[in-house]
């Protein structure tokens, strides 16, 4: 695929060369001019895909049809490279908790008491690289509409961000804008940001990852689906007007690799208006409550092409749309552009004729523009007219659900054996307490390990008044019922170093970490979502990584008894021919019958016992220590032990239910050193601790299935752990204003705080960096 922009391809179609300059390309004309050349390649279609469209239609497609197929058959919309692998998730044993599974806008999970929760992650990687603020902002907007479309009120967001090396000049360009965009849009929508990730690695320098999760809640009976049913029912487009922004976003940005010498792609990034989206949310919820729609779909990637074809494909009949009725921001748009536009803050609903008036009334109340643009028909075709002429006449399933599927070639990366043989055991280990102390400080003050307040203070975590825990806690925790105190927990985790060393195990390690984060917070893990960020599927080695990660995640979910509720695949994450490290970001949802049982990570009181649950081995492959101190990635990731994760999770749930622990914090990147730092600094309480055996492994190894808990009742916790088969080590006692490692060294909280908090402000606080990127006067910032 070339990197010429699709917009250029389209304008060629409409103005030259030759055939279509002066004539509207109608179905009739297409039938009469079968041999006219069409720029399918510029629109991202392969020759065989173009031939298949001609076979389906039994003629050449019209310009508008070609546009529609090209965006819907893009990698982003069709999952053509990934679908054959994603079947593994659907093959998992059925879970009673899953009310709506994969294939809809988002999966829906039963969380008890008649409540259902829907949650999903979506990537907006390439737009965020080109235009950091708007790319990230519209990423939030898109996933929020997905959740809304299911019938739920969106209640929180999380963001999982990855950038190039923290001190790289381009990171200083991209990061402040992305953070401001996530915050600017989410804050203005009134959605608390309850957590996420922020990590740095050279592999993301030309291709940052911006993954946003949204979670919504509804009653079971309120679940909505994207289908057009009932002949004569009206198709209503509502929300913002359609403009020229984001044309070809899915085919150009999300489905291609960046080329350093390619043309600017700025026009393909959408521009967001969170105020309009807030009104759209409130209007939709009022429309749902009054039972005014039979089907609904949001307009995201591929815009009107996607919404109309998916609604028609999901229903039992056909659909007719009069494109002239679509309210436009730019009257010069061609019909193909209108169909491909990714203008934000738009939704499409199927409404019974008798309810149209009431529907429009609700929209008027919220100042939301709503227009009837078509109706459900009794055929099996999707037809679209423009200026009274038929420009589209297609079987909708062939557009939306029966796109191409590829079994891409796969090969194990040639460098994998060498990478795994490069064992970190050969690296110089800290030889003295002073060196170990220095390694601790290096890890916790590295950009990955450092305090993230510089970012998270730009996000509203309080709005709606139900946030129980937010970053820097292990999981985001939200109350969903003020009377029963039912609540949910969510964590997002994606260690790409582990996945690079072993994508099968790495995906499971990420699942294990997200599961553990939910469990240490006291919640019962219930369901899984994912955002799979990989390089180009046309590279066999990348495709192998992808297939292995999917296989690993599916096997891990089977072992933990958790369903995969849906997910998102983002491919072509590479610049030139260098793919990113495979980055499967895994989200786990947990539930609390009583969210007052949540367990925070910070130490609050003196004289509590500090206990380490789980077993530590000298495992440094892919560790933060190897990366930070030696710039090393090699060896094997830590040994996966899902039975141990499960035992730990069940023990922590019991301890939380019985109120036996005052804090719990998992061990992951940076090992015990990172965990102790965060727990101590949260409320400024130190501890005196004794490490047995190899202090280096004890502090910096990244063995799985571990957590630190504090308790006033050590004996009972020890007994409970023994009964659960979870190994326990007594580390010491909280208190004082330092972390005292008996026989090794002391770290005053003051020194620790200085090291931990200084890093990100030093890198990103120059005000100029932010000013240059946030478009002045266009960003609501109260």
């Amino acid at each position, binding site marked *: 695929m070339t990197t010429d922009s699709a917009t250029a391809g389209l304008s060629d179609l409409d103005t030259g060369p030759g055939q279509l300059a002066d004539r509207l390309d109608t179905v009739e004309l297409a039938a009469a001019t079968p041999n006219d050349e069409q720029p399918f390649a510029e629109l991202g279609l392969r020759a065989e895909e173009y031939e298949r469209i001609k076979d389906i239609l039994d003629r050449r497609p019209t310009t508008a049809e070609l546009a529609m197929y090209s965006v819907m058959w893009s990698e982003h919309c069709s999952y053509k490279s990934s679908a054959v692998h994603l079947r593994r998730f659907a093959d998992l044993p059925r879970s009673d908790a899953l009310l709506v599974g994969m294939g809809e806008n988002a999966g829906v999970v039963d969380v008890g008491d008649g409540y259902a929760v829907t949650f999903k992650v979506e990537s907006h990687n390439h737009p965020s690289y080109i235009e950091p603020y708007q790319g990230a902002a519209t990423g939030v907007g898109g996933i929020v509409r997905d959740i809304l479309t299911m019938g739920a009120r969106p209640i929180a967001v999380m963001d999982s961000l990855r950038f190039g090396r923290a001190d790289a000049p381009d990171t200083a360009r991209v990061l402040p804008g992305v953070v401001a965009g996530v915050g*600017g849009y989410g*804050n203005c929508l009134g959605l608390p940001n309850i957590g996420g990730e922020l990590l740095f690695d050279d592999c993301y320098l030309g291709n940052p990852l911006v993954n946003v999760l949204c979670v919504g809640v509804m009653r079971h009976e309120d679940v909505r689906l994207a289908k057009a049913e009932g002949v004569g029912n009206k198709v209503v487009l509502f929300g913002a007007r359609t403009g020229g922004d984001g044309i070809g976003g899915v085919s150009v940005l999300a489905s291609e690799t960046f080329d350093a010498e390619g043309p600017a792609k700025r026009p393909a990034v959408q521009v967001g208006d969170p105020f309009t989206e807030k009104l759209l949310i409130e209007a939709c919820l009022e429309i749902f409550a009054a039972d005014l729609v039979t089907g609904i779909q949001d307009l995201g990637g591929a815009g009107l092409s996607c919404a109309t074809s998916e609604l028609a494909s999901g229903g039992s009949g056909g659909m007719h749309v009069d494109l002239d009725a679509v309210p436009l921001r730019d009257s010069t748009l061609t019909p193909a552009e209108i169909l491909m536009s990714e203008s934000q803050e738009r939704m499409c609903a199927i409404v019974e004729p008798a309810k149209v008036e009431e529907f429009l009334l609700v929209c008027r109340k919220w100042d939301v523009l709503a227009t009837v643009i078509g109706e459900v028909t009794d055929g099996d075709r999707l037809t679209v007219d423009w200026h009274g002429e038929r420009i589209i006449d297609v079987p909708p399933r062939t557009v939306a659900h029966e796109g191409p599927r590829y079994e891409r070639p796969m090969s194990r990366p040639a460098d994998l054996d060498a990478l795994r043989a490069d064992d970190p055991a050969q690296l110089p280990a800290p030889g003295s307490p002073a060196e170990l102390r220095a390694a601790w400080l290096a890890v916790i003050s590295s950009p990955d390990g450092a305090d993230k307040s510089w970012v998270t203070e730009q996000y509203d975590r309080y709005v709606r008044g139900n946030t129980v825990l937010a970053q820097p806690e292990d999981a985001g925790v939200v109350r969903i019922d003020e009377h029963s105190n039912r609540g949910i927990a969510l964590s997002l985790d994606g260690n790409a170093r582990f996945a690079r060393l072993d994508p099968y195990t790495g995906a499971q390690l990420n699942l294990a970490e997200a599961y553990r984060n939910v469990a240490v917070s006291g919640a019962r893990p219930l369901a899984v979502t994912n955002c799979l960020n990989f390089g180009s599927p046309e590279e066999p080695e990348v495709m192998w990584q992808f297939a292995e990660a999917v296989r690993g995640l599916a096997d891990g979910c089977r072992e933990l008894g958790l369903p995969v509720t849906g997910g998102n695949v983002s491919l072509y994450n590479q610049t030139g021919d260098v793919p990113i490290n495979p980055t499967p970001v895994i989200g786990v949802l947990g539930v609390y019958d009583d969210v007052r049982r949540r367990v925070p990570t910070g130490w609050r009181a003196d004289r509590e016992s500090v206990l380490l649950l789980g077993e530590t081995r000298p495992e440094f492959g892919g560790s933060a220590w190897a990366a930070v101190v030696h710039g090393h990635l090699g060896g094997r990731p830590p040994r996966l032990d899902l039975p141990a994760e499960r035992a730990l999770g069940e023990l922590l749930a019991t301890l939380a239910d019985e109120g036996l622990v005052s804090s719990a914090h998992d061990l992951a990147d940076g090992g015990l050193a990172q965990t102790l730092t965060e727990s101590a600094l949260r409320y400024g309480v130190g501890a005196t601790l004794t490490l047995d055996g190899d202090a280096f492994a004890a502090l910096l190894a990244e063995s799985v299935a571990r957590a630190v808990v504090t308790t006033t009742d050590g004996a009972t916790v020890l007994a409970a752990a023994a009964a659960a088969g979870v190994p326990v080590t007594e580390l010491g006692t909280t208190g004082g204003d330092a972390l005292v490692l008996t026989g090794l060294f002391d770290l005053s909280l003051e020194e620790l705080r200085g090291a931990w908090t200084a890093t990100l402000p030093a890198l990103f606080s120059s005000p100029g960096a932010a000013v240059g990127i946030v478009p002045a006067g266009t960003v*609501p910032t109260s």
Partner: protein
Amino acid sequence: MRIGVITFPGSLDDVDAARAVRLAGGEPVTLWHADDDLRDVDAVVLPGGFSYGDYLRAGAIAARAPLMRSVVDRAHQGLPVLGICNGFQVLCEAGLLPGALTRNSHLHFRNRDQGLRVERADTTWTSSYTSGQQIVVPVKNGEGRYVAADPELDRLEGEGRVVVRYVGGNPNGSSRDIAGVTSADGRVVGLMPHPEHAVEDLTGPSVDGLGFFTSVLAAAVAA
């Protein structure tokens, strides 16, 4: 006691303000920006958010909403009004409170748990506190930097119109660490921090914010 909470298009913390009223023992009453009826409420809260997307200037469009005409009229007759964050911006734009809120000095949106000192414990909205009391409530804004001309600031200080002041760090560059001010009669109060987010142990950094809502209830009982 009926306390109205106004919802403008883009209001976000209206549910939080209503919850705070309820937890304080009052009856929250929903008010809609496009109405002109204050529904016999005994006091009004203008909640936080981004009314009208903060387009033009934060609070500027909301200050001209139909319901605000009634609020301004009744405030001049003594109706207690509390503006929180965007609500404070609306009150300044509506001329009920002096000064203006501008872009934070560091140019970022900032959300943190913030120390405040209650400078005036004799307004309708702060009588539950003691003068000089220090409290912790969340602050979260991008345009929360309180500004006024120096002579105006001197006058406000002289008249005791500064209700709450930031302590332990100024989150947005506000002049003289001013976090909130009052009308001359002590019945209209605006502040940038969010007392409605500090009303429950489970969800807030403290329950220090509840005092704003219990104060107005006490004032009504006394009246």
